[in-house]
């Protein structure tokens, strides 16, 4: 493949991935409003289109045509840069996520992923950790006490839970022996005794790591029960109190895009990625892996929404104590155990 084709293929894949991701973000919001509505015995959106399906479109139009207020007391350069940082970091991390095997389109073999890096997972963690700046700087530059408190809470919470998050992933990395997401998924092919899939969640005690990952990921994405940075009852809206129109929409998009990324990583690392039963015609066998992957991601997104409809919010000291005194020791213990298992087996 020469440089020209490479750039063309990458550009096409990037555009497709962005379109799919942004549509998924819009419809995750719709799904959330619908599901939470039903959990609380309401209907959710019903007016715009059948089942309210055009609601995200209407919301998008509203965000674009609303007046873009910039309060006079903000520090302007960072106030404008903060939502951009948040959304760029949220959207970039999708670039290393593989959604399926290799495909051949018109004689050109290409992986179903924008780029396959051998440090894919590190890139995702790095970009996620840069996303904190969007939130922290929004809080600082808004020059308002609610925003500042929200920003401070967010940065403290994200830094604390990032450690457990990273440590929970290392067990999987030891088992797979690679940072490349594609290789991690390939290591999970096959099954035990012919019927239990050889996914990491069933393997070497990684179910503990799975729950540590899920809990820390909820804290990383500022979702209930860890949504203290934007706790409405105490902080108005937290770090995005002073934001309106499209800038607010950027934070919103970043939150949901991060949810999707987290779900993708959980699927790839713990639930075997695109592996699943294959059957039927050749065309169906090409499509099924992608279908399995999307189904698993959907399940994670649904759990996200389910948890939001079920659990109350933590108190701030509970959140910190839980992260440092429970999750972190558990993650380290899991890491030592996994290392021991791998060492004894080889």
């Amino acid at each position, binding site marked *: *493949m020469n*440089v020209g084709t*490479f750039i063309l293929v990458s550009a096409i894949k990037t555009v497709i991935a962005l379109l799919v991701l942004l549509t998924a973000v819009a419809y995750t919001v719709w799904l959330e409003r619908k599901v939470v509505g039903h959990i609380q015995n309401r209907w959710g959106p019903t007016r715009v289109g059948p089942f309210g399906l055009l609601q995200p479109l209407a919301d998008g139009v509203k965000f674009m045509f609303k007046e873009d207020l910039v309060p006079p007391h903000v520090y302007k350069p*960072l106030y404008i840069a903060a939502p951009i940082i948040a959304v760029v970091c949220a959207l970039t991390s999708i670039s290393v996520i593989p959604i399926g095997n290799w495909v051949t389109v018109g004689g050109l073999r290409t992986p179903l992923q924008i780029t396959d*890096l*051998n*440090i894919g997972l*590190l*890139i995702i*963690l*790095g970009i*996620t*950790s*840069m996303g*904190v*700046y969007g939130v*922290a*700087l929004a*809080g*600082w530059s808004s020059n308002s006490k609610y925003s*500042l408190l929200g*920003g*401070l809470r967010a*940065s*403290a919470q*994200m*830094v604390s839970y*990032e450690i457990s998050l*990273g440590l929970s992933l290392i067990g999987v990395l030891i088992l797979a*022996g*690679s*940072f490349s997401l594609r290789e991690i998924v390939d290591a999970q092919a096959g099954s035990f005794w012919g019927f239990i899939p050889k996914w990491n969640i069933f393997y070497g005690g990684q179910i503990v790591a799975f729950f540590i990952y899920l809990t820390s990921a909820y804290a990383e994405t500022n979702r209930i029960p860890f949504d203290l940075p934007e706790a409405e009852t105490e902080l108005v809206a937290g770090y995005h109190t002073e934001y309106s129109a499209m800038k607010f929409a950027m934070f919103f998009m970043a939150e949901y895009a991060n949810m999707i990324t987290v779900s993708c990583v959980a699927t790839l690392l713990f639930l075997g990625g695109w592996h699943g039963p294959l059957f039927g015609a050749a065309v169906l066998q090409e499509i099924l892996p992608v279908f399995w992957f999307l189904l698993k991601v959907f399940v994670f997104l649904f759990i996200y929404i389910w948890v939001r409809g079920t659990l109350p919010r933590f108190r701030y000291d509970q959140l910190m104590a839980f992260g440092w005194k429970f999750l972190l020791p558990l993650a380290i213990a899991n890491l030592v155990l996994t290392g021991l298992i791998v060492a004894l087996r080889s």
Partner: protein
Amino acid sequence: MQPVATTFFFYFLAALTLAGGVLVITRKNPVHSALALIIALLAQAGLYLMLYAPFVAGVQIILYAGGIMVLFLFVIMLVNLERSQREEQFNKQWLLGIIAATALGALFITIFVRGRAIFPVHIAAVAEESNTQEIGLMLYGNYMFTFEIASLLLLVAIIGAVVMAKKRI
């Protein structure tokens, strides 16, 4: 694929690192300094990538740019900025400054001139795929002692911080 425009990227990243570093010490507002430092650290990660050290680059971003700098920013946000902005930014130790700068400059020039004799010309290329593994083996094999000393130092620092922060232990 072969890497493209390596010379351009090297000078670009180096310039970014230097510009970030200069801004860190010249900006009066500590938040701006912290942001400049983040840019310098990110550009450094890019330089590590160009040296075929993907693991070091990733860890540089996660730990320094993403972890430690967030804590810096966190502390800066908590302190009273107005007072620190009125204070003088540089102290007037001209003589010491000149001596230190000359010494450092002499060191750099020596290395630049005699570098070919000091450093190996060709380093055996480490396979990119097993880069992480190689680093792990090096750290826990060849450099075990240094590594343990570093962790001991960190432990001492942690205990010191706890002792200072807690009134009663």
